[in-house]
């Protein structure tokens, strides 16, 4: 699942694949601001066919949180 999430991050935010680790923080390490976060959530929703609420999106701090959130919805 991590690979899929990483590919989605690469595709959506034009980031380097190997710069993304499970523990990287979205804001500090990957520089994802609130606007990019909204766009990322849209991509994740279409990619994994899940619904992400605003609260859930706000609670995501690291890549691991994303993976856990999506797994919980699958």
């Amino acid at each position, binding site marked *: 699942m991590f690979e899929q999430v990483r590919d989605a991050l690469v595709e*959506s935010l034009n980031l380097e694949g190997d710069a993304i680790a499970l523990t990287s923080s979205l804001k500090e390490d990957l520089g994802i601001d*609130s*606007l990019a976060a*909204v*766009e990322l959530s*849209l*991509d994740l929703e*279409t990619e994994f066919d899940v619904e992400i609420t605003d609260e859930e999106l706000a609670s995501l701090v690291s890549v691991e949180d994303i993976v856990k959130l999506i797994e919980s919805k699958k």
Partner: protein
Amino acid sequence: MIKKILIANRGEIAVRIIRTAKEMNIETVAVYSTADKKALHVQLADESVCIGSPLAKDSYLNMFSIIQAACQTGCDAIHPGFGFLSENAEFARLVQECGLIFIGPNYKIIEKLGNKNVAREMMIAAGVPVIPGSKDIITDIEKGKEDAKKLGYPIMVKASNGGGGRGMRVVENENEFETMFRQAKSEAKACFGDDDVYIEKLIRNPKHIEVQVVGDQFGNVIHLFERDCSFQRRNQKMIEEAPCFKLDKTIRENMLNDAIKACQATGYDSVGTIEFLLDQSGAYYFMEMNTRIQVEHPITEMITGVDLIKLQIKIASHNKINLKQSDIQQKGYAIECRINAEDIEKDFAPQPGRIDFMHIPGGRGIRIDSAMYNGCEISPYYDSMILKLIAYGDTRLECIKKMRRALGELIIDGVTTNTKFHYYTLHSKEFIEGLYDTSFCENFIKELKDNGTLI
């Protein structure tokens, strides 16, 4: 087959029609008012005839001038475009009586569907859901109040022969009824020369979804999917999208089928649009049918690959639609931003003037429909829309990013435009999430004003 068309319109839609006609080897005749002497549509058409002075009523609404111009230049058809005479049943009848083809539906259908109240009754008969409201035209205030009470406030007072957001007023409660009723009647009189009004239930902050339909003179009817036109300011559309993002599949299916039903019920035989209001509970209601090509038709063309004007002309030449519903495939997303010459810091006041310099964005997936060119004049007599910026992307987000890039590249000097406003909108969270309704635009404007971006 139609050989020569007079385009009874101006601006970008006239240019757009002339382009398709040329591709079909059809000769084109442009008409213009003295204010539009140097307009692009006049220069692109094969021939042109001046039909009157600048005021619309003396030129683009002057039926006799237009028909006379068509006859003396040997045209066999008139294309009305949108606005102006496009939904005027009288004009359509006159065109036919002078032995010309009116590129649009039969005038009897225009007449029926032009009257909002008659249209509602036809939809009820066809089993298409309509907004709860009183059938007959309200002439007496007390009777109106009674009906309103039965319906339950808030209600809307609407012009029977109106449209485009004019001649309508919201009534929150009974003591507001009289003032709003009179205002709606006088605006309807001013805009449409007819002050018949009726009342219906107000649907609070709905989404405005419309379905593009096409019928021919042999009973075939198809749809070309839906458009989301919820981004409106004072009932005037500013941004439109196709398809509607995150529309529930079953609701969409039912809506598309109801649009076909509505078309069949009226025997509609041209390109048209059925407008629905979708409320928060997922129920939708027929609002009105537009018996013309619409400003936002390009976004449907982008996701289906169909040239709607070509289809319109072919149908008007008594051809069958050669497309089956299964042939119409929808792919990707398209968004249209209407670029108007208006000042967002002066409450969107129109800004006529002269364009000193203009740069048009381009690249994959960008389409510009406009009649503007370097050095041209924007006259105060007509609509302030000067350019339609259309972006197409594989996903909605790609489409938004493409539109942002194009807006950033667009330069129009010499005239104030609303480009900046579109740029802000495409960066707002609610817009990106795509769940906004018809109240979002005005709230967004207020928000921008409050935090100082728009003084």
